[in-house]
């Protein structure tokens, strides 16, 4: 195994990298992703509002050193707008994904520990939500709540829990048949006590990995719903807003308005994806290889 891996590495890269084992590689990747993402967040938070104030003298500029992403039709710097937009999107995504993951944790626990009836209800709910496309349910919820930040967060939170719930439920079902649980049960501990003291600690890795993997999903859906006009208000510097606004100007040849923000969104989402996968590998090596 090791030889083959080493060979493959040699062939693909053509030179020798300092040798790291799997675990070290994973750790380094995680570290790099964290540095990258936090620099985006810090950058977005630190940049002042001056660069996104309207300035008619610098409007419609194509990318240059001064404005690496160009400027828009009101003279706002697109790099600043993109960074701020991504920060906002990440905040929204983070909050929504966390709420979603907690819903999944609670429902998964309930289903697996509170008896048949609870299990039926939760499974039915999961099936129900999985049968409707995410985006449709999301639009319905966000629209019913009148759009805006609140609508998007609640909408994303309420549509992204089912798959994680399934994972957690399966995990709990498996755990329940473990010896130490059976012993605890025989010793007369209550269901609730067992759930909280014995089962919950075992779920923490699943929970965090689930959260990390939910996150890019949440961000993409936030962007798409905002793009479709059911989400955040158009003056907020969200990435979905930037993309939908740019659409109108694409036909005039201002390609940089959509290209860089779209690319940044992709890179950011992919970075989280990689981060989640590697964390998964680190915390749960057996599952990760499946």
């Amino acid at each position, binding site marked *: 195994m090791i030889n083959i891996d080493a060979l493959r590495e040699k062939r693909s890269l053509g030179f020798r990298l300092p040798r790291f084992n799997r675990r070290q590689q994973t750790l380094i990747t995680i570290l790099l992703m964290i540095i990258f993402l936090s620099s985006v967040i810090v950058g977005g938070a630190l940049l002042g509002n001056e660069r996104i104030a309207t300035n*008619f003298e610098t409007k419609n500029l194509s990318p240059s050193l001064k404005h690496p992403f160009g400027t828009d039709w009101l003279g706002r710097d697109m790099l600043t707008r993109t960074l701020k937009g991504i920060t906002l999107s990440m905040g929204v995504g983070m909050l929504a994904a966390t709420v979603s993951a907690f819903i999944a944790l609670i429902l998964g626990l309930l289903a697996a520990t509170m008896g048949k009836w609870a299990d039926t209800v939760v499974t039915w709910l999961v099936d129900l939500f999985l049968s409707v496309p995410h985006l449709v349910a999301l639009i319905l919820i966000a629209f019913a709540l*009148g759009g805006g930040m609140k609508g998007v967060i609640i909408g994303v939170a309420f549509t992204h829990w089912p798959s994680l719930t399934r994972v957690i439920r399966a995990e709990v079902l498996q755990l329940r048949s473990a010896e130490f649980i059976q012993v605890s049960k025989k010793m007369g501990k209550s269901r609730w006590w067992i759930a909280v003291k014995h089962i919950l600690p075992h779920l923490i890795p699943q929970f965090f990995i689930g959260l990390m993997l939910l996150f890019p999903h949440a961000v*993409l859906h936030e962007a798409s719903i905002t793009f479709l006009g059911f989400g955040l*208000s158009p003056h907020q510097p969200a990435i979905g807003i930037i993309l939908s606004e740019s659409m109108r*100007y694409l036909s005039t040849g201002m390609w940089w308005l959509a290209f860089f923000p779209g690319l940044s969104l992709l890179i950011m989402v992919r970075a989280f994806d990689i981060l989640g996968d590697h964390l998964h590998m680190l915390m749960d090596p057996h599952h990760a290889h499946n």
Partner: protein
Amino acid sequence: MSSKRAMLAVLLVIVLSTMVFTGCAPAKSDNQNTQNITTKEELILAIGSEPEDGFDPTTGWGRYGSPLFQSTLLTRNQDLKIVNDLAVEYKVSDDGLIWTVELRKDAKFSDGQPLTSEDVVYTYNAAAESGSVIDLSVMKSVEAIDHYIVQFTLKQPQSTFVNLLLTLGIVPKHAHGKDYATNPIGSGPFKLVQWDKGQQLIVEANPEYYGSAPAFKKLTFLFLGEDAAFAAAKAGTVDIAYLPPAFGKQAVPGMRLVTLNSVDNRGMMFPVVKAGGTTKEGIPVGNDVTADLAIRKAINFAIDRQALVNGVLEGFGTPAYTVCDGLPWWNPETVIKDGDMEKAKKILSDGGWRDTDGDGILEKDTLKAQFTLIYPSSDQTRQSLAISVADMIKPIGINIAVEGKSWDEIQKMMHSNAVLFGWGSHDPLEMYNLYSSKTAGIGWYNTGFYSNPIIDSYMEKALAAVTEEEALEYWKKAQWDGNTGFSAMGDAPWAWMVNLNHLYLVNEKLDIGQAKIQPHGHGWPITDNIVEWHWNE
């Protein structure tokens, strides 16, 4: 999960890149539609939005003139002078109460039935009863004196009544029912053939039309968004397309740019009463910050209107100081020297506004100089104007938060927040409706609850005037009489910003004649002189 996301990512890249490439691709200018036809008899137009309520004049269709399917008693020519259309003569009694109109005898509806005074009486009564935007409350009665003479009796003299004769299209008594809005029959130059809601409207020349026959036998109106209309023009699939000002600098082969002056204005409406009240429906009324005259005046003086025209409208517009710039009832004294930050700051400090906590935003006692400006989120131009004005005003210490909302939401917020509205009409009654205390809180009029008894009395006098000249004098005084008025120098319940030019891309071979100064609503008003349009090979 992971592969799904990867798919999504790939898909997004593909979509994005196709958009970019199509955006950059040069337009193919070969116009396949027109190549094989020697005498062009069909036009394809993409000139704007679809009238959702349909084409019934008694509920508001064509209220800015040019109803297309119907015709009106009177009409305005290119110089905005009043001329006859269905009427051959109209007279007003000396007391201004009795209006007598004599109809032409050769007018027929598109179903072949003659148009008589019965139809006119029916139209006006139906419009009065419809409870729509058409305000006929001043009309006491309308009677048919004989087959071709109609007599209107007013409750009190009203000089603006003539505008109803100018804009209300006559509907047939025998064929006006519930489905009229989707299936209009009228005496106008065109008749409806097919209306696919949300897509297109197809009309054909009305053979019964009494005026000169239009040069085109068939028109197809496509209801496209701004960017789609522009793309269609680039691809050569439409003969005329409306254009947002931001695209005005784009050259399209085979098309020329037509810019029409308009009174289609944009401005910021301020609630002028203090917060606390509600309307009958429970919607909050009033805003403590904009109720302060110093704030409203300072904003009016601080806005650099020419910069907005150049920056947001790409130069396709003019600065607006009132709701009616350039119209006969406009008072030119209302033009102020704007973009004057020093004057704005002085007005604010004289008004008692100081920056006591050093955060760049002024305070007066415990009140902070900040409020929300709402704009309809679907309108790109208004959004740009709102954002630009908020940034423009910031240096004088007023913080305007900008928010985009739907029209439904705006209705619930428009009495307690500043709103970026647009108006502009050939009828001074609109000005009355915007500033009269009687229309406070009614519909979209006077949403800021502005009221000033002196101005009310000027405007009532203008309405009651028998002659046009007398009315004009009072309309001007209502704007500014040397002491007060509703313009920026007086009570400043609005900060008007710009008049838009209406931009169209027109096929080089299409001659659209001489259009008059356009009212509010980009699109339909251009069809006003469609009978004069012709094709030059």
